[in-house]
């Protein structure tokens, strides 16, 4: 590269040294390069597929899948289509990530606060936890928990039976749940109504507080509403108390709700791993708030709970939320490791599909597309939330 200084005195810049033209050239060259590379790979692929007469296209989605899936949120049998099987996989991924995120964030916040506790034992233990679980690959943790689940627990016939309706065996945890009854649907509806009511109540109470300065016992009231509505609905619908009890029939337990070892191992591994990172984020967030703030708030006579909720948390959240988002995304992405321990998540089902149809390109493209959607949705939601708390801070 010739030094540009030499060309400065010249009145007429040559084509090569005109920044505007050169930038266009760079862009054209790089676009051309990427385009050519893409074209090259694409034509190779087309040629390879044709030469080996491998089928292409998404036509297979409508064919019969003819494989069973271990656990599913919607009705599914081997007679359903590949599309349905993949849908089951997506739902399983959503389930594990959803529960995993909630648990990991809760546990992470607890441990993050414990890390700052003035109890020496508590803070030491939490820092040991954080170090250990951060530094062991999540896949290894999954294998460990899975092996633990099926090697340590007894067979269904010798299941651990701590109390009525709960069995723990190497087929998973089975427990009694209320038998299906229309009342449950009313309860769900009532709960949704309660949520809406609480939302409006909260808005009203905040407005009133801003106007008059009087506070309203929000926590107690909303808890009451949230509990009262569903219970009322249950009572009105005839107060059904029938339970679906798990019974050992033939090989496995029937009735009740089963949490499989695969699911538990995956959940345990993901939650314990991610919680360690969340704890670090929470700790950093809380520490980022100047100590003077706490002292000032205490000087104003606020109780320590209120100091945390009114002064520290709103400020800490601004620091916490962005890295927390990426941890949530990490958990969702790590849930794809389910394939290693046999939980039928999306990657696992897509893998089987790839294998049976031989259409690897379509399969991997679907995996990538689905996870991209998850990522975009999560970050869109968290961006919205981030904006919201940024406004609150004013």
């Amino acid at each position: 590269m010739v030094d540009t200084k030499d060309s400065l005195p010249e009145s007429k810049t040559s084509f090569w040294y005109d920044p505007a033209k050169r930038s266009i050239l760079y862009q054209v060259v790089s676009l051309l390069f990427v385009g050519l590379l893409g074209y090259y790979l694409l034509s190779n692929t087309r040629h390879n597929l044709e030469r080996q007469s491998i089928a292409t296209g998404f036509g297979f989605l409508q064919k019969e899948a003819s494989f069973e899936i271990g656990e599913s949120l919607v009705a599914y049998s081997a007679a359903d289509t590949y599309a349905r099987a993949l849908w089951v996989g997506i739902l399983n991924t959503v389930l594990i990530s959803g529960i995993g995120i909630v648990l990991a964030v809760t546990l992470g916040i607890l441990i993050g606060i414990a890390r700052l506790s003035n109890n020496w034992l508590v803070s030491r233990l939490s820092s040991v936890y954080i170090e250990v679980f951060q530094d062991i690959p999540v896949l290894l943790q999954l294998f460990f928990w899975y092996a633990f689940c099926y090697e340590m627990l007894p067979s269904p016939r010798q299941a651990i039976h701590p109390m009525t309706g709960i069995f723990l065996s190497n087929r998973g945890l089975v427990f009694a749940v209320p038998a299906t009854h229309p009342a449950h649907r009313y309860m769900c509806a009532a709960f949704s109504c309660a949520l809406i009511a609480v939302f409006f109540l909260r808005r009203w109470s905040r407005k009133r507080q801003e106007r008059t300065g009087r506070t309203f016992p929000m926590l107690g009231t909303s808890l009451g509403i949230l509990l009262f509505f569903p219970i009322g609905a249950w009572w009105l619908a005839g107060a059904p108390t029938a339970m679906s009890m798990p019974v050992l029939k033939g090989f496995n337990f029937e009735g009740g709700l089963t949490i499989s070892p695969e699911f538990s191992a995956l959940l345990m591994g993901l939650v314990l791993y991610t919680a360690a990172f969340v704890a670090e984020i929470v700790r950093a967030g809380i520490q980022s708030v100047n100590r003077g703030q706490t002292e000032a708030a205490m000087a104003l006579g606020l109780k320590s709970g209120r100091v945390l909720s009114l002064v520290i948390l709103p400020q800490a959240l601004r620091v916490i939320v962005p890295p927390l988002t990426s941890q949530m995304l990490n958990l969702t992405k790590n849930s794809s490791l389910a394939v290693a321990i046999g939980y039928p998540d999306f990657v696992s089902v897509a893998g089987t599909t790839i294998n049976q149809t031989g259409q690897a390109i379509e399969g991997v493209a679907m995996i990538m597309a689905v996870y991209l959607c998850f990522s975009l949705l999560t970050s869109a939601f968290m961006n919205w939330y981030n904006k919201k708390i940024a406004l609150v801070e004013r």
Partner: protein
Amino acid sequence: MKCFRLCAAAILLAFTICGLVSAGTLEDVRAKGFIQAGVNGDVFGFGKPDEKGVWRGLDIDTARAVAAAVFGDTGKVKFTPVTAKTRFTALQSGEIDVLTRNCTQTLTRDTALGLDFCQVNYYDGQGFMVPKKLGVKSAKELNGATVCVLPGTTTEQNVADYFRANGMKMKPVVIESTADLYKAYFAGRCDCITSDTSQLAGNRAVAPNPKDHILLPEIISKEPLAPAVRHGDNKWKDIVHYSILAMIAAEEMGITSKNVDQLLKSTDPKIQRFLGVTPGNGEALGLDEKFAYNIVKQVGNYGEVFERNVGAGSPLGLERGLNALWTRGGLMYAPPFN
């Protein structure tokens, strides 16, 4: 900028070099001096390294036979363990030259997956293994059972079909690696495990306590296990195909690794043609005239290979059954070698 130009040049150069290497599999294999075979790696008796790291099994010997045919040396084959998921792409991409991984021949695989299957080297069928203490006598009693099954295999479809056809319910546990799947079964994660009966027997043979597990009498599918090559390379397919057939033909003619040297002097024209004393076969395949001699001498005939790896004398103790010669009620039948 200089850096960019250099990179571009390097990439272009790389592609040009890559573009040059391309010919038939036989030429490629000859050029690199060995055959790359995709094998299972987890199934005792078919393809698994022993404690010294030496590969052993029926599928291994099949690949060695191909090496003996092409190079006259069974050592010129290298083994890549492939999973059920990666096996076909490994072949399609040219990472391996031949797939000898107890792989079932099916219509879809032969067509839409871009593979070509050669002579079957083991006729198998899918069965069930259960712990003895469950007291199950027939697969029909398995309603509601948790079934360990390898994902993405014909086995997975067959078992789903079988349970559906018999109006029974099942709960599959699918684990990618064969070894882990059996580990889960032996640890009691599933009530039964389903796979090709040969595989079940092989894994039972090395189980902590083989006597605690039984194979159920039902065979629910046909599983012709055959080596596969890339679709469209007929010359290479012929070589793999006739390498296996040569082992079967040798057994038909009573040629073993022990007597093959004596039989070189045989006056039987069939044997003379087979062993390349009378030339013709080798040239037709594009191989050395002694290819069949090399296979039998170095690997053995099909009966020997069977006995050594999975037969009555081995830990698996399998019957010949469908894999006996056609003259003894089996399916092994070689076309004339002339």
